């Protein structure tokens, strides 16, 4: 049974009227949130929500488990930070450049990884991401263990001063919302339907005349680019790009967020991201090893809770009907 096939139909989440209501309520909550909760924390959650959703585009809708998505998030962070700090590019251009760099890296990694399927695909992405980590460790522009520090936040279109956390929050919200809109459009387009067909039965999709490899590669590049959009934005939020972003542990975290929230659902990854980032922030204050907890949640999710939060809710709603 394929990982995502369990979630089949999950994309059509509930009725459309209910959905519109849910999206509107979420947006309203997101608009009000920074007046109650610390905006930097919220921006971190938003960036990881987009990162997890980009990852979910592959695992949930193409059935490809990438174990190296941190490379795209981290690469974009480095490029954005470098462009903003050293080249002095405007913030919006720096973020865009970061996303493009991540998409380019995604093309290279994806091109190699789609040559194998299933479990091998995961191992290849993990290995290539680790290779990228070692490259980041060696090349001078990443500044090794120190990372790129003191990245200026700059202004948006030369008007809005982004050093103001509240103002920047709304910019980040707009970026992340646009990213999610793009994912929603991709999933519900003819292109997205072919992706799902490949996920559910690749030989059949090929026999229908679709070039599965080409579709997979395009999805991979899109996912990497969106992960890069999240990574670049995150670098500007924290004014920092470090090796932490490209470590394999980060690839594990984004898998956890998606698994916890619900693979193959649109609402799941942001939920998972909010829970995970919240936990990490909370645990940083007390003396408990974060990796152990992340590992435990992983084990529990895989053993008992494979549908994730959103998947369980959907299953509950469907049962009641």
């Amino acid at each position, binding site marked *: 049974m394929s990982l995502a096939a369990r979630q089949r139909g999950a994309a059509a989440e509930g009725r459309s009227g209910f959905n519109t209501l849910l999206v509107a309520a979420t947006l309203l909550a997101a608009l009000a949130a920074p007046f109650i909760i610390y905006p930097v924390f919220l921006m971190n959650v938003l960036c990881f929500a987009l990162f997890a959703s980009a990852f979910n585009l592959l695992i949930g809708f193409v059935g490809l488990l990438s174990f190296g998505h941190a490379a795209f998030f981290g690469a974009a962070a480095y490029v954005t930070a470098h462009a903003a700090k050293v080249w002095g590019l405007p913030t919006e251009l720096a973020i865009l450049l970061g996303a493009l760099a991540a998409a380019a890296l995604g093309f290279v990694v994806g091109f190699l990884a789609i040559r194998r399927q299933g479990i091998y695909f995961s191992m290849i992405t993990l290995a290539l991401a680790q290779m990228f980590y070692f490259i980041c460790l060696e090349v001078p522009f990443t500044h090794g263990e120190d990372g790129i520090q003191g990245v200026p936040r700059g202004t948006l279109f030369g008007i809005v001063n982004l050093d103001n956390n509240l103002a920047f929050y709304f910019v980040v919200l707009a970026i992340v919302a646009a990213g999610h809109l793009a994912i929603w459009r991709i999933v519900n387009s003819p292109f997205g339907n072919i992706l799902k067909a490949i996920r559910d039965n690749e030989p059949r999709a090929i026999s229908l005349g679709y070039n599965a490899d080409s579709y997979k590669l395009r999805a991979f590049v899109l996912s990497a680019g969106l992960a890069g959009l999240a990574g670049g934005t995150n670098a500007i939020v924290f004014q920092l790009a470090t090796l932490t972003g490209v470590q*394999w542990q980060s690839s594990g975290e984004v898998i956890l967020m998606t698994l916890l929230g619900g693979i193959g659902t649109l609402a799941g990854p942001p939920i998972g991201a909010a829970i995970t980032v919240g936990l990490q922030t909370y645990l940083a204050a007390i003396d408990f090893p974060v990796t152990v907890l992340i590992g435990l949640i992983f084990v529990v999710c895989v053993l008992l809770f494979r549908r994730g939060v959103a998947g369980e809710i959907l299953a509950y709603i469907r049962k009641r009907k």
Partner: protein
Amino acid sequence: MFCIPYVKCLPLIALYGQLLLGLINGSFYALLSLGLAVIFGMLRVINFAHGALYMLGAFVSWWLSIAFGIPYWGALVLAPLAVGVVAVVIEKTMLHQMYRLDPLYGLLLTFGITQVIEGTFRYFYGASGQPYPPPAALSGPLNLGFMILPIYRGWVVLVSILACLGTWLLIERTRIGAYLRAATENPVLVQTFGINVPLMMTLTYAFGAALAGFAGVLAAPIYQVSPLMGTNLIIIVFAVVVAGGMGSILGAIVTGYILGLLEGLTKVFYPEASNIVIFVVMAIVLLLRPAGLFGRAA
């Protein structure tokens, strides 16, 4: 002196030294990828926890020596057994539920287990290593004439080659191995012949894990015993496995040694690339022969 025109000249001693290091790394790659291949063949699970089990093997031997004064020779037997027992517990309580699911879940589960094991050890022992001296009988150098060989390093290479060959013989030339290969092809049919396939799966996982634990004991005197020793290794071993293809036991062994040696050579001629050379080889193999050097096309 040994020269490659236009590239580099260096004393032969340095070349031999790096080749020996490459051979030692290759030994660990071979032992670990062999275990991964055996487990994957039977269980269809990629055991991410393999690096953590290797680390566990090293830690158990360190404990045995600190707490009970049990020497290296005892650890060489007891530590793999202990790791095997841990593996039985993992398989019986959690991993066996993964067989009917997509193989990706097995990878995710063992990834989670890895995080728990390594996180716990890091919490208690930090990132620094504990020293574990080699036994007296294997200490000291041996003059081979063309180079000075630290005896323990020679021992590691010798023993791991023997362990690899032993495993190969066990699987290819014994009755148990024949059952194992048959169950890999068709578990249902083998079970109808009255062979306890679930038990075989448990034991296969324990055996693969014990191999990792064995490698951990061998590694303890060379690298320090540290919670992080398995983390980076397992990702390299994944690359080795992808490059070699998991279809054949012998393929996993040979690829492990070849890539270890290649890494050693890279350290001599272009040290900056030594960290990534195995990944580069994996990428090249994927381009030219996607099924792996010894793999069969799916």
